[in-house]
């Protein structure tokens, strides 16, 4: 157990609140107390962990929303002042969201969570922001917890996907990899797993249009993140219990899936051109 005085010093050292004399005193103590040294290292590890996740971006339109809300408040206050007051009020019908409704927040490298697609489509203007937030949160919860009950189309005009590892992601364990057998189409499909998440990677090169469907054999898999490298080519639709890609050209698609089918039933991938069909199944455990 570390003495209180030295625990105090260790914590203050993490916070940059120790003098040189105190640092020297602490080092002398730690040199003779391995347990205390271990705790100091833990404190350093903890501080580093916090540092690594500091850069959570707020929603892109938050600043504009704040400024708009404050302006409306200021105008409202000015309007309620007696006649002759310095600021004249003008009725404001400015929308809460400065961004186009339905537009995803644009992040710096074009990544955005699939969850944001649904969240933005259901965004509600203030002063219903709270009710809207609860409704969106409940919808997101339903989407993650249950299968889809209607088709959703990914809006290709915004940067899709988020948090989807590239094909070189070392943390995922490779499970399976197979090729599609179709004339004029080169299709490589692989599955990888990390905890309760399944990464499905599709690399498609085709001169002709090809329809690809990805379906779990049994149970549910819900996409929690996805990315297509070239947003201009290919269209992805999420239907009930399957994902469908309409593709031509060259592209890569990554899906991160969760659900009771992950680590259980195999994943069926079916690719179809105008004249041929290729079906493969990949392991999910």
């Amino acid at each position: 157990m570390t003495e209180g005085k030295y625990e105090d010093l260790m914590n203050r050292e993490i916070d940059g609140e120790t003098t040189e004399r105190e640092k020297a005193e602490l080092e002398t103590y730690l040199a003779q107390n391995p347990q205390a040294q271990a705790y100091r290292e833990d404190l350093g590890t903890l501080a580093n962990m916090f540092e690594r996740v500091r850069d959570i971006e707020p929603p892109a339109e938050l600043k504009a929303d704040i400024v708009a809300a404050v302006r409306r408040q200021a105008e409202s206050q000015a309007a309620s002042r007696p006649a002759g007051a310095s600021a004249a009020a003008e009725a404001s019908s400015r929308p809460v969201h400065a961004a186009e409704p339905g537009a995803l927040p644009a992040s710096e490298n074009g990544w955005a969570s699939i969850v944001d697609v649904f969240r933005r489509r259901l965004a509600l203007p203030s002063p219903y922001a709270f009710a809207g937030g609860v409704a969106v949160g409940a919808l997101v919860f339903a989407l993650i917890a249950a299968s889809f009950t209607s088709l959703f189309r990914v809006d290709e005009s915004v940067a899709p996907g988020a948090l989807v590892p590239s094909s070189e992601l070392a943390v995922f364990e490779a499970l399976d990899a197979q090729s599609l057998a179709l004339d004029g189409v080169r299709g490589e499909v692989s599955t990888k797993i990390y905890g309760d998440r399944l990464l499905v990677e599709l690399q498609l090169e085709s001169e002709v249009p090809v329809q690809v469907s990805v379906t779990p054999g049994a149970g549910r898999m819900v996409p929690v993140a996805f990315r297509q490298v070239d947003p201009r080519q290919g269209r992805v639709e999420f239907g009930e219990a399957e994902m469908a890609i309409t593709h031509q050209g060259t592209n890569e698609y990554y899906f991160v899936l969760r659900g009771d089918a992950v680590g259980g039933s195999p994943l069926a991938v079916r690719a179809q051109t105008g004249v041929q069909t290729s079906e493969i199944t990949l392991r999910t455990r």
Partner: protein
Amino acid sequence: MAGLDDSSLVRDCVEGRPQAFDVLVDRYYKVLFNVALRIIGDPEEARDITQTTFMKVYENLGTYDPKRKFFSWIYRIAVNESINAKGRRKPLEPVDIEFVARGDTPEQVFEKQRLHESIQGALMKLSLEHRQVVVLRHFGDLSYKDIASALDIPEKTVKSRLFEARRQLCTILIKGRAAT
């Protein structure tokens, strides 16, 4: 105007130059969002808290005491809003957080996501009192003195809560991970 200190900007706002408030918003909205998010655990709520905080700050600019640090004052309002929101919250499935990659590889972005989930889960296991001091120190970058001012507690209490919170977090996040 962007180069003015907080007190000067507040004075400008009070004297009828609302553009000065835009500079204050720009200065603090990101860190306020992060603080609210860490205290409340929900991004949509954090967004609402951030917006409400700035509206209340604007409403009460006339009561701001320039002897006090401005960001301690707004953090105080944000923390109160977070506590109020916590009472109103319904338990919801966490929404994925968006990390801006800024040159990170997809692997690094994914790791951050996992780390964020672990950290947020551990923070939510702390009492609100302990969570506030950790969040204000590590995500708000406030000194012990400023945290004391923001929470209206003695500096000694800030340190004891912060050090205890770190002890708990080390157990949850580091020793707990090593044991698995």
